[in-house]
C-alpha cells in the first residue's frame, strides 16, 4: 500500500514538473514467447530483441543472442504481437473535431491534446499507433494526425515522425446531414449529387490554382519582378492531393458513392488510399482492387447507426474483400472500442478470415493504409520496437495485455498499473466518483 501511494505521488509530481528533454531510445527483449510476427508467421519459443528503439532481431530463442545490460522480459506462456495500429480514431483531438461551417477545409490540421486519458486505456489494450482523423461533417475535411501513444510526452513527441500527410473525406449521409443550425441557412450539399459536385468543384479550382502557379513560375524564369499569385492554403492542400502528396481516406458506406469517389479521383489523376467504414465495399470489391483502394471497417459493429446507408452491411464483407485482394483493416472509431480492438479483429475469424488475416487487419494492413507499413505493423528486423505482450493468444476471450512497448520503452505494464483489482483492494476505495 505504501509503495502504491509513493507511486501515485510520483505521478502527481510529474504532472506539475516542466516537460523534460526527449526520451532516449531504449533496449528491451522478450525471451521465450510465442511471437506473432504477422508477416513472417508464428515463432514458438521465440525471442524479439529491441535496440535503440528498433527491432534488432527476432527468431527462435536459441538463435537470438541478447547482449548484456538489456532488460529481458520472460515470455514463457506469453504471446507477442506488433503494437496495434488503429486506422480510424478521433482520440485526443485538441479544440474540436469538425471545422464544420465550410464544407471544404483541407487546410486545417488535426491538433493533439497529449494528456488525454484515453491514451492510457488504449495503451492497456496494446494500441501503439493511431490515425487521428478529422470528423465526417465535411466533404473534404482536414489533414489528419498519426500519433504514437507516448503517454507523458508533449504533442510534438507524440506525432509519428515521418508519417505521410493524410486527409479525411466524408461522403453520404454525414456531410449531407451535418447541417448548420439557425441563424445560418442549411449547408450545401444536401444530396449525394451535391457531394460529388462539391468534390469536382474543389478539385477544378485546385487545377486552376496549379496552372496559375505554373504560369507564374514560367514567367519568373525570365522576369525577376514577376508577382507571385496569392498563396491559398486551402487550394494548396487540394493541389497536394492531386499531386499524391496527401493520401485520402474517404468515409463512405454505399457502393455507389465508393464508385463515385474513385471515378472523381481518377478523373483528377489521383487515387483514394482507403475507404473508411466501407460497409458496402464488398459489393464493389473488384473495383476497389483495380483502383488500389483499401478498406477500413468495424469488426462486427453493425447497424445501430440509425442511417439508411448502413442497411446492407454484413460482417462477411470482410472475407469477400480479402479474397479479392483488397487490403482490409479493422478500426475502432471509438476510444472505448480501441482498448479491445484485438477482440474486434478476432471476431472476424468467425466470418471467414484466417487468424493471420484477422491479425493483419489491426497491424500491417492498418499500417500500410496510413503509409507506415515499412515502419510498424509487423515484427521484423529494422522496424519500430512497438510490441503488445499478451498473457494468451490475443484472440482468446480471456487474454489481456500485460505489457505495451513503444520504441523499446514500456508505456503500459499491468504489474505496475492501477488496475481494477488493485483499486477494489484499496481499503479507502468508495466507488467511482464519475
Amino acid at each position, binding site marked *: 500500500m505504501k509503495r502504491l501511494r509513493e507511486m501515485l505521488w510520483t505521478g502527481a509530481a510529474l504532472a*506539475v514538473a516542466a516537460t523534460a528533454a526527449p526520451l532516449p531510445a531504449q533496449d528491451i527483449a522478450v525471451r521465450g514467447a510465442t511471437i506473432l510476427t504477422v508477416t513472417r508467421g508464428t515463432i514458438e519459443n521465440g525471442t524479439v530483441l529491441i535496440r535503440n528503439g528498433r527491432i534488432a532481431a527476432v527468431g527462435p530463442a536459441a538463435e537470438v543472442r541478447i547482449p548484456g545490460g538489456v532488460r529481458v522480459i520472460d515470455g514463457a506462456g506469453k504471446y507477442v504481437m506488433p503494437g496495434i495500429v488503429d486506422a480510424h480514431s478521433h482520440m485526443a483531438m485538441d479544440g*474540436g473535431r469538425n471545422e464544420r461551417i465550410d464544407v471544404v477545409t483541407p487546410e*486545417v*490540421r488535426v*491538433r493533439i491534446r497529449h494528456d488525454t486519458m484515453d491514451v492510457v486505456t488504449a495503451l492497456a489494450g496494446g494500441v501503439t499507433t493511431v490515425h487521428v482523423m478529422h470528423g465526417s461533417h465535411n466533404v473534404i475535411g*482536414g489533414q489528419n494526425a498519426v500519433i504514437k501513444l507516448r503517454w507523458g510526452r508533449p504533442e510534438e513527441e507524440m506525432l509519428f515522425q515521418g508519417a505521410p500527410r493524410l486527409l479525411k473525406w466524408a461522403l453520404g449521409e454525414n456531410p449531407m446531414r451535418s447541417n448548420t443550425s439557425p*441563424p445560418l441557412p442549411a449547408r450545401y450539399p444536401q444530396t449525394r449529387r451535391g457531394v460529388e459536385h462539391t468534390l469536382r468543384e474543389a478539385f477544378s479550382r485546385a487545377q486552376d490554382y496549379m496552372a496559375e502557379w505554373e504560369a507564374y513560375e514560367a514567367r519568373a524564369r525570365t522576369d525577376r519582378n514577376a508577382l507571385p499569385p496569392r498563396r491559398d492554403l486551402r487550394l494548396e492542400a487540394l493541389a497536394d492531393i492531386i499531386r499524391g502528396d496527401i493520401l485520402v481516406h474517404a468515409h463512405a458506406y454505399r457502393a455507389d458513392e465508393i464508385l463515385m469517389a474513385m471515378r472523381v479521383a481518377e478523373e483528377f489523376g489521383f487515387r483514394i488510399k482507403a475507404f473508411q467504414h466501407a460497409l458496402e465495399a464488398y459489393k464493389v470489391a473488384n473495383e476497389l482492387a483495380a483502383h488500389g483502394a483499401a478498406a477500413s471497417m468495424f469488426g462486427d459493429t453493425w447497424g445501430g447507426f440509425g442511417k439508411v446507408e448502413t442497411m446492407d452491411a454484413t460482417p462477411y464483407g470482410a472475407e469477400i474483400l480479402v479474397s479479392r485482394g483488397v487490403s482490409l483493416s479493422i478500426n475502432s472509431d471509438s476510444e472505448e472500442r480501441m482498448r479491445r480492438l484485438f477482440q474486434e479483429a478476432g471476431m472476424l475469424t468467425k466470418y471467414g478470415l484466417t487468424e493471420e488475416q484477422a491479425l493483419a487487419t489491426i497491424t500491417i494492413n492498418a499500417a500500410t493504409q496510413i503509409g507506415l507499413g515499412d515502419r510498424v505493423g509487423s515484427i521484423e528486423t529494422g522496424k519500430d520496437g512497438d510490441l503488445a505482450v499478451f498473457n494468451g493468444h490475443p484472440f482468446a476471450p480471456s487474454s489481456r495485455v500485460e505489457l505495451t512497448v513503444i520504441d523499446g520503452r514500456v508505456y503500459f505494464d499491468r504489474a505496475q498499473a492501477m488496475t481494477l483489482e488493485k483499486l477494489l483492494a484499496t481499503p*479507502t476505495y468508495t466507488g467511482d*466518483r464519475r
Partner: protein
Amino acid sequence: MQRSLFHAGAALVLAASLAPPGASAQSTAAGTLTGSYALTNARVVVSPDRVLQRATVVIRDGRIEAVGARIAPPRDAQVLDLSGLTVYPGLIDAAATPARTVPQPTDGNASNLAPQRRGVDGIDLPETARDAWRAAGVTTLGLAYAGGTDLRREPGAQYRIVQESEPLLPGSTSVVNLGAGPLERLLVPGSEAVQVGFGTRTIHAYPVTLMGSIAFVHQAFLDAAHQRRVRQAQAPGADRRPEVAALEAASAGEQRVFFTVWQQNNIRRAIELSEELGLDYVLLGAQEGFRMADRIARAGRPVLVSLSYPPTTQATGRSYALDVFGANGELHDPARVDADLARALRGNAATLVRAGVPVALTSYGLEGPEQFRSAVLEAVQAGLPAAEALRALTVTPARILGLQDRVGTVERGKLANLVVAEGDLFAPGTRVRHVFVEGRHHEVTQNAPSRGVAAETGPAPGEREP
C-alpha cells in the same frame, strides 16, 4: 534590427540600459513644459542592476535632467526631501485589458480580422482609474484587447475557458503614459503591436475549431504579405480593406505581433507559426510557459507573462496526476493536485526567468491595478527575485514596446516617469507616495498598502471535470 535586440543576453540588456540615452528621445503627448523638481536624499533604483544611496534626481521639462549622489538642486527647482524613500522607474504594463465601453462584436458574421482597431478605441480611463494605476506604480500602460484567446475572466467570476465571440485578430495595442487629459493626447506613437491568438469560437463563421483558427491566422498573414507585394509592385487587384492593410507591416516582420496563447501546446504552435511566417513576435499570456521553458528560451523572443491564471482544471497535465491512478480521493487528492498546479502556474515567471527568457509581467486578463500589484507580489513570493520583477516591469517591457530610449530606467534624458515608494516596491505593505508622469507630479490618493491575495486555485477541492 528590432529582432536582434532580443537575442542579446542579459549583459547586453544591462549595457544598453546604462548607456546614455540618445538625443532621439522626444517629448510625447501633451508636450507641455513642466516645472522642475529636485528629489533629494532618496535611494534611487536607477535600473534593476544599479542603486544609488542618498542621491538626487532633477526633473525638468518632463525629462530627467540629472541623476547622482553629488548634484546640487537647481535654484529654480522645487525641492522634495525624500529621506527614507525610494525612487523607482515608473512601471510599464504593456498589455492591460481595462473595460471597454465599445461592445465587442457578437454578430454571427463578425470578422475575425480586425487589426485596424486601436487598443485605445472604446477605452475611457477616468482620472480615478489612472490614479489607481499610478498607485500601483504603473506610469506606462499598453491597452490591449482581451479577445483572440479562449481564456477569459468573466466579470467578478473565476477564470474560465469560454468560447469567445471576439476576433482572432482583435486589434492592435495602444500605449499611453498615464498623465492627465484625453487619452488620445497621451498616445505614444510607434509602439503599437498587432494582437493575434488561437481561439475556438461559437460564432457561425469559419473557423470554429482550434485547427481552423490556426489555419485562419496563417492565411491572414499570407494575405497581408501578398497584398503588400501587390501594392509595392503597383499591380492591379489590390485589396484595400483596412483590416488587410493594417496587417501588412506585421506580415513583413516590420511591426511587432503580440501572440496570445496560454496552453503549452498553443505556445509551441504560436512559436512555430511565427517562425514560419517570419514575424517579429512576442508571446502574450504564456501561462503554461513553465512546462516548456527551454523551448521558449530557444525561440529567443521575450514573453509578456500574464499574471491572470487559468483554472487548474484546464491546466495541461492535470490528468497525469489525477486520473491515471484510479478514482479514489485519498489516492489522488484533487485538492493537492490543484494546489501543486496552482503553485506551478504562479511560479511561471520565475521558471521562465531561470531558463533565460526575457520576461515582462502584464496584467493581461486581470481586472485592474490592485489585482496586478497583488499578483506581482505573489509572483515574487513564488520565486521571482525582486530585481527580476523590476526588470520585468521596466527594462524588458520598454524594449518590447520599442521605448527603451524613453522609459524603463532613471537616467538622464529619459522621460521623468518615476515612482516614489516607502521602501521595497515588491514587499507587502509598501505604499507608493508620489508618482511623476512626464515630469508632472501626481498625488496618490488611492493609497492602500499592497498585500498579497489568496491564490485562486481553480475549483473547490473534490470538484471534477464532468
